[in-house]
Structure formats: C-alpha cells, structure tokens
C-alpha cells in the first residue's frame, strides 16, 4: 500500500512527460492524459481516505509510511508518510489539479504539451512537499514546485508576466535558501548531539536545541514558510504572481502553493522548534492580524480583479498565522479548515476571474458591470464564493475562521478582536466585487455567454465542496485532528504514540522489502 505515496509523484511526473510528448500528435491527448493522471490520483487518495474513515487508526496519527535509503552516507532517506493532514491536502491538490486542467481546456492554445508538463510537475512538487518526511527531500520538492511554476507564469502569463515571474522566483528562491541553511544546521546540531546524522523528520523531532540556536534555525524555516504563505510584509510577490499567471497558475498558486507555507508552519515549525516558536508567537500572531487587516484594506482599493482576489488571500492567510501561533487545538483545527476552504473559495474566485477574462479580455473591474443580466449562472456562483470569502456561516470559510478565532480568543483576546474587525472589512471588499462586476447597469457592446457545460461542472464541483465543508466539516476535522494534535504536543504524544508505532509498525504499513526507517 505504502508504495502508493511515491506512486502519486511518479505518476504525475510521468504523466507530465507523456503529455508533452503526445501533444505533438494532438493537444487533446495532452489534456486527456493530464486529466486522467490527476483523476487516478484523486480516486486513489479518496479510497485511502474512505478506508481510514471506517477504521480510525488508533494510537498513531500516521496512515501510510514509505521509506528507502537514498544516500545512506549522509543519512538521506527517500521517506514519505501520510497522516490526516497530508491526506486532506493531497485530496485538495488532486481535486484542484483536475479543475486546473479543465479550466485550461480552452484558455491554453499555445505550447499545450509543455504547459501540461509544467502543470503536472508543479503538482508533483506540491505532492512531494506534503508527503516528504525527510528534510533533504523536502527541500528538493520545495524547489521542484518552484521552477515549473516560474515557467507557467513566464510563458502563459498576462502582459507583465516577466516581472511577476522573476519576482516570484527570487522571493521564493531566496527564502528557500535560508531554509536550506537551517536544515543543514539542524542536521549538524542533531548529529553532533546524538552521533546519528540524519535528515529524517522523526529523528530530528526530539532534538534539544539551545535557545539561541533554536531561534536562528527556526527563523530560517519561518522565512521560507511565511514568504510562501505569505505574511505581510513578505507578500509583495503574491499580487503580481497571482494576477499575471494564467488561470490555472493562479489557482495552483493560491489554492495549493500558499498551503505549502501553512503546512510547513504546522509540520515543521511547531513540533521541531516549539520553544523558539512559542517565544515569537505574540509577534507572529500580530503579523497574522496585520495581514488580515492590511490585505483587506488593499483588496478594497484594487481595480484589477485578479489582484483584488490575490489580496484577499493575503488577508485570509493571516488567519493561518494567527491560528498556528496560538498553539491552541481548536484554532489549529481552524487552520486546517482554512487551508481547505480557502483553497476552494479563492481558487473558485480566480477561476471566475479567468472565465471573465476569456470573455471580455480584461481584468479591470471598472470595465465590468451588470454581468448578472447576461450571465446569471456565473453571477450565482460568484455570489456563493464571495459569501464564502466574507465568511457566511454554512460555508467552509466560516467554520475555519470561527474555530480559529474561538481558539485564539483563549490566548490573545485583543488580537482576536482586531482580527474580527477584518471580518467587516472582508464584507466590504467582497460586496465590492459583486457590485462592480455583476450588478449595476450592463456594459454595452459586449457579447457575453453564460457558463458552458464544462464550466458548470467546474463551478458546480466547487460550490458543492464549499457547502459541504461548511455544513458537514466533521469528516475533515476528524481526519486531521489527531495529526494536528500530535504536532501541537510533540513531547507527550509523539514519544508515546508515533515513534513506537514507527518501530513496531502496527498501524504503519511499512514497505515490506527494502524499507528502513533509520
């Protein structure tokens, strides 16, 4: 079973190459191959999810574990493991991956093969990031997802794509290098203490760090993650990258790539550098609140639709900073919900922006208006996702934001109040989108057709998902709760539940042949 973990990545890599090759025959082949690859992965992950819903893995938060030695002399393993959190994020990745192929069906007409190659390789990198339990490998995938994304923006982007692509690349690359330094630092500190030089996550978990060293190492990781997240003031790359990327690029960036930052905070910062993280927690939470308010303020004044949505992401990711660094279990559940719900709702808004662009070839909301009359279907879906953005109860984002705030209230009431003000600001910018684009008198001389069948499938799937997350969030919460709590309390729970099972392998399906965990 566990072989499926690298299998996910390999299929994506191979699917990408195959798409590129067959695109010479027909563009349609490339699209279908990408679609089927992602569909297969999606079905596989859903099967794993359903199986583990029936029999909740008691005692361990880990569902699958795969490990082979890669470069043993440096303690580098090809180690991947799946827990509830990564399960959820993989489901999201493959689900939105499918949609990103579908939305590119008509939009992308040049270099179709290369496009799908890049798209699938980005997704492979993201999948790797969510699965890897070896820090060296983690860094590798962190870079893998960066480069194809760079090309996606550079080749298929809008007018200012060059600037945006390089900005994106430099920001993430530079911050990634700091993480690499920290990874190496952690590797040597741990090796010096124990004599075991290893990049393995589980090995490194218990590393005792002197406060000062711990702080510096933590900051290295933190910079990489909060640039990706992004947190103010490291968000400057995001509006450009999001607004210049092609639709699928924006979708993958907003819905998935930002989540790798959030994932990193939960997976690495919190358990590996607990003391250091707790020390900076008040600052980090303040940065989160700043992001919520500042992002909302900027979103309100934008005239470029995609840029507007990009700034709403900055605002929403502030909730993740706030929730993670509150070290509260309820808030952490809110963070997980926020990753899922924001992925879907903001992804949907970018898709809508893309659909509008396909029709009228502009992203300027001053040139839009009255679209409801010609495109009521699109208007209705836009309504759903703007509602999600300002946090209407009954949709996924509300569950996320409410859990986060109710949890943060336990530790930082003042910051919670400020964050709650962000909810009012969110209402203001969300309603502005609706007003400028869909209400008002129609802009004349524009041929507008409502959503096509393909587009209805895309939006329908997203609408169902966001309502499902809002009304029945329990499956998601159940899936992630153990994994998240283990990360929040590494000292008592990791020792007690995860590591023993790593050795005994009872709830772990270790790979039979060639598996080695050390």
């Amino acid at each position, binding site marked *: 079973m566990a072989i499926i973990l690298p299998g996910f990545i390999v299929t994506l890599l191979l699917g990408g190459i195959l798409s590129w090759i067959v695109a010479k025959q027909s563009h349609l082949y490339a699209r279908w191959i990408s679609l089927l690859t992602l569909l297969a992965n999606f079905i596989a992950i859903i099967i794993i999810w359903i199986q583990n819903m029936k029999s909740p893995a008691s005692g361990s938060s880990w569902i699958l574990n795969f490990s082979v030695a890669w470069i043993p002399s440096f303690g580098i393993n090809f180690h991947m493991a799946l827990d509830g959190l990564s399960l959820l994020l993989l489901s999201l990745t493959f689900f939105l991956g499918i949609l990103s192929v579908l939305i590119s069906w008509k939009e992308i007409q040049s270099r179709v093969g290369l496009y799908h190659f890049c798209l699938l390789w980005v997704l492979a990198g993201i999948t790797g990031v969510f699965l890897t339990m070896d820090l060296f490998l983690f860094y590798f995938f962190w870079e893998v997802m960066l480069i194809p994304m760079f090309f996606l923006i550079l080749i298929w982007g809008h007018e200012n794509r060059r600037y945006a692509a390089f900005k994106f690349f430099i920001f993430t690359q530079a911050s990634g290098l700091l993480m690499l330094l920290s990874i190496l630092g952690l590797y040597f500190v741990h090796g010096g203490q124990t004599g075991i030089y290893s990049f393995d996550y589980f090995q490194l978990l218990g590393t005792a760090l002197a406060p000062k060293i711990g702080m510096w190492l933590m900051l290295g990781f933190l910079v990489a993650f909060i640039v990706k997240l992004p947190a103010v003031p490291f968000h*400057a790359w995001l509006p450009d990258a999001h607004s210049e990327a092609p639709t699928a690029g924006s979708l993958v960036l907003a819905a998935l790539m930002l989540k790798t930052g959030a994932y990193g905070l939960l997976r690495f910062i919190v358990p590996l550098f607990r003391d250091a993280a707790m020390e900076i927690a008040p600052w980090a939470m303040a940065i989160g609140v700043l992001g919520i308010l500042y992002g909302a303020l900027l979103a309100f004044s934008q005239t470029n639709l995609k840029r507007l949505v990009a700034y709403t992401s900055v605002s929403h990711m502030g909730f993740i900073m706030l929730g993670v660094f509150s070290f509260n279990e309820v808030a952490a559940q809110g963070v997980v919900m926020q990753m899922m719900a924001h992925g879907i709702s903001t992804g949907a808004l970018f898709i809508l922006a893309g659909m509008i662009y396909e029709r009228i070839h502009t992203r300027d909301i001053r040139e839009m208006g009255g679209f409801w009359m010609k495109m009521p279907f699109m208007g209705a879906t836009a309504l759903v996702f703007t509602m999600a953005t300002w946090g209407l109860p009954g949709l996924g984002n509300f569950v996320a934001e409410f859990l986060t705030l*109710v*949890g943060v209230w336990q530790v930082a009431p003042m910051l919670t109040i400020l964050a709650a003000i962000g909810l009012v600001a969110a209402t203001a910018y969300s309603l502005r989108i609706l007003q400028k684009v869909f209400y008002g008198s129609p802009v004349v001389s524009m041929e507008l057709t409502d959503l096509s069948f393909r587009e209805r499938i895309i939006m329908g799937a997203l609408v169902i998902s966001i309502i499902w997350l809002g009304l029945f969030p329990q499956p998601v919460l159940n899936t992630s709760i153990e994994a998240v709590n283990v990360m929040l309390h590494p000292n008592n729970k990791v020792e007690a539940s995860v590591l023993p099972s790593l050795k005994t392998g009872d709830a772990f399906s270790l790979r039979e042949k060639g598996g080695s965990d050390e």
Partner: protein
Amino acid sequence: MSDLVWLIPGLPFVGAVILIFGGTNLPRRLVPVVGAGSVGLSALMTLFIGFEFLTATPTAQSYQQVVWNWIEASGFSVAFAFHLDVLSLVFIFVITFVGFLIHLYSAEFMASDEGYARFFAYLNLFVGFMLILVMADNLLLMYLGWEGVGLCSYLLIGFWYLDEKNGYAARKAFIITRVGDTAMVIGLFILFKTFGTLNIAGIQEQAPQLWVVGSSQATLIALLLLGGAVGKSAQLPLQTWLPDAMAGPSPVSALIHAATMVTAGVYIIARTHVIFELAPIALFTVGVIGALTLLIAGFSALTQYDLKRVLAYSTISQIGYMFLALGVGAWSSAIFHFMIHAFFKALLFLGAGAVIAAVHHEHDMFKMGGLRKKLPLVYWTFLIGAASLAALPFVTAGFYSKDQILWLSWASEKGNNWLFLAALIGAFITTVYTFRMVFLTFFGEVKTQVTRVPGLAINISLVVLAILSTIGGFIEIPHSMGHVQMVTDFLSPVLPVTSIRPGIESSEWIIQLAAAILSIGGLLLAYFLYMKRPSLHFKIKNSIPHLHSFWLSGWRFDSLYDWLVVRPFVYVANINKNDPFNGPYNGVVRAANFFHRILSFTQSGILRWYLIGVVIGAILILTLGIWL
C-alpha cells in the same frame, strides 16, 4: 409529528433550491406555487407541531431535535439542532404566517418582474434563515440564521440591481449590520471560553451559578450581544441602514420590517434574558437605547416625504418600544408588541406597496392624494393598520400592546419616569406622523392617476392582515379592562413575569387614559395640520428649516458615519492602493540595476581603459603597502 420540526425551516430551503435550480426554466405559473407554497406548508407544519407541543401530556417545557453534529473539534462542539419552546413558537408562528401572506402578495405584485423566480428564491431563503435563527438551540446556529438573514436582506434590498443606488443601499445595510454581528461574535467567543459551550439552555443553566447580579463579565457579554441586536434591529447607533433599505421591492420591506430581520434583535435579547438579568447595567442600556431610538426615529418620521420612509422610521421607533420593554424587564410585553407590530407593519407596507404601484411608482406623499376613492380596499385596510400603529384606544391591537409597554415602563421595578416620559411622547408623535401619512395619501384632492388596481392575491393578504391587526390585541387585555393575559401566561414558562413596584397597580387606568388622550390628540393635531389648515404645516416647516432638514436626514447620522468611518477608510485604501511594502523591494532592484550599470561601465572592451585600470590598481596597492 415533533420529529418533523426540522421541516419548518427545511421547507422554505427546499423551495429556494427548486427555484434556484429551476431558474428561468421553471414555468412562470409554478414559481409562486413553489415559493409561497413552501412557506405555506411550513406555516401548516407550525400549526400542527405547535398544537401537538402545547397539548402534549405531560406538558413539556421545550423540545430538542439534533439534526446532525455540526462542528466538533477538541472540546468545541456544536450541533445542528433545533429547540422548540413557547418563545420560539410565537416567532415561528409570526414568521411563517405573515411570511406566507407576504409571499402570496408578492405572487401578484412581482408577477411581471423579470427576476420572478430569483425573487421568490431569495424570499424563501430569507424565511428559512429567520426560522433557523429563532429555532436554533445554540448560539452558533443562531448566528448562521443571523448572518443568513443579513445576506438575504442584502440580496433583496439590491434586488433591482441595475440601479447603482439600490446596490449602495444593500451594501450599506449589510455592512452596518455586520458591524453589530462582529460585536456579537466576540460575545460568543467569551461565552464559549466561560462556559465551554454555546448551547443556549446550557448557558442559561450555568450563568446564574457562575455570576452574581452585576458581574462585569455578564455585563460585557450582554453588551456585546446587544451590539448584534442593535445592528439587526436598527436601533441607535446602527439604525441608519433601515431607511435606505426601502430600495427593495415593497414586499421585501414588509418582510424585513415585520416578520423577519429587525425583530431578530428583540428575539436574541429575550432568548438570552438570563444573561441580561444578571447584567442590570446592560439591561438598562437596552431600555435607554429603546427610548432614545423611538424618539429620534419618531421625529424623523414626522418630516419624511417618502411614504415608505415614514414607515421605515416608524419601524425603528416601534422596535424602540420593544427594546424599551425588554429594558424594563417587560419581556412578554415586548414579544406581544413584536407580534402585533408584525401584523400591522406588514399590512402597512403591503398597502403602501399597492399604493405606490397604483400611482406609477410615485413615493412622495405630497404628490399623492385622494386615493381613498380609487383604492377603497387598500384605503380601509391601510387605515386599520395605521390606527393600530397609532394605538387608537380600545378597537386596535396596537393599543393593547403599546399600552402595556407604557404602563410597565413606569410601573416595573426597572422602569423610571424618564423612560415613561419618552414612551409617552413617542406615542403622541406616532399618532401624528401616522395620520399625517394617511391624510396626505388618501385624502385631499386627487393628484395622480391610478394605473393599477390590486387583484385578488393582494387583497386577500391585506384583509387577513387587517383582521389580525384588530383582533390580535384582544388576547391580552389589561387588568383595568377585563384582564386577559394569554400572551403573558403563554410565555411564562420561558420568560419571567415582570415584577411591578408595589402599591401602584390601581393607577394603571391613569396611564391608559393618558395614552388614549395622547393618541387621540395626535390624531386631531394631524387632522388640523394636514386637513383643516393645510398651509399651516408648510409654515411650521419653513419656520424651522434647519431642524426640519436635520430630522429629514435622520439626525445626520449618515454624514457623521461618512466622515468618521467611510471617508477615512476609502482615503487610506486609495492612497495605499499600490502597496508601499513594494517600495523596499523595488529599492533593492533599483540598487542592483544601478551597480550593474556602474560595473558594466568598467567592462567597456577598450584596451586602454583596462591598462589604466591596472596601473591605478597597482599604484593603489603599492601606496597601501607603503602606508601600512
């Protein structure tokens, strides 16, 4: 039957889903059948379930139904669960029945509108969310209904979206109520931290054990909940959205003002009365807000030209009465007035809608006149509603409900002379503006042509509501006149009976007499000003132009908020549009470019430059070597 409680809010949602997915494909005839039918069924369900609930043996205080577990995470647990007791039953009854009549009315009123299905979908959602609000067994689910209602008000106020003005009014309503909601949500955070639950019954049980009367935490929470309540119920200081909410179609106004939305604030305070009773300061604040609001809105109503704006201000004012009643601990009186107000205000708005449609969408009362001959049924029903609003003694339902509030605002242990005085002045003003509206619209010379006469559906709704606005009052008759206490008795399992200051019960008739005199006095004044000597009110207006425009603009609250909040926000947002955080990063880029240019200058490819460079370098190194 009780197992089907979930169907009461469920049916309108089913209707909405059918209408949304059916959309324009649905035959036009079917749209009102689905829209009004679902609410009608819901009303029937209410009858059956209410009957069964009340006659059940042994009598139950309340009935709970968990539909599913909504959110459960690390000790935070909230269910999608409904709670039925007599308080929610009164609200459900009013929402479904008045809601149904408004739907029925809309079937005709909106028949030629392009967005017929959309309209009914929103209307159904509105009723559904309001039902969730009043049936929720925990505060989070209530918040779901609460926000849903806000959403629907936004959608319906801006229903005619082609006009930017409507969109503005809709956003204004939504954002202002959202401010209150945010206060309320913070209240929920504190409640959860304190009690570890958001279940209303659980909180009510634990609160008296945990807090003493006057506890600062109880006061804080009560004030935060009050923040939510003043937003939704359009009370001071968040009342400014309601007059603009007139931008929506008239049935929407009827729904917002009568059966749903604005009464949510009254409901939540009544529902969490245990907390408010532990926080006397907060409760007193409720009363003061009510008293101030009823006066402010009353004076504004006196000066309006737009028929619907008069009604809007009168709603703010009447909800003020309900808040006043809540504030003096007259819980059941507030609920009684809510119910009666729902009847006559729905009636008045629907009547106003019929009038406005009849005179070609003219809203200005001064351009109407003499309509009583042309629209007799509308005139008579409107008159009944107006009489009830003005609380004309003995024959109208409004008299009985308002009289009770007047009496208790003085006689209750929590009441005082000032609150009573405000209520008394308010009662007088109410009659004046009410009959000003009636006289201007239906009497005098004919100024406009009637182009549309209401048909059967509209007439039925008006007549039924007119009957309810009259006989509805007889279920609660004061001591001095026969003593019927159906509402108070009915609500007694949930809401405590008001304690009255000792030894003053005998003076109740004086209050009643005063109220009756003021009410009739107001009628006579309006008659004198607008019928007998029509020139007089112009003279009065011209002698106090500033005060008049001050009241007309709703005491300038709009400009105040515009200057305090809107302009600064927009200003900051605009100057900040290009994100100053980009500055340092662009600075790095510019610096890199600058040095790049300087350094590339040295790589000119000209040999003599290189030679000079080598020589200068050699000299420098040598000099350094000598120096050091």
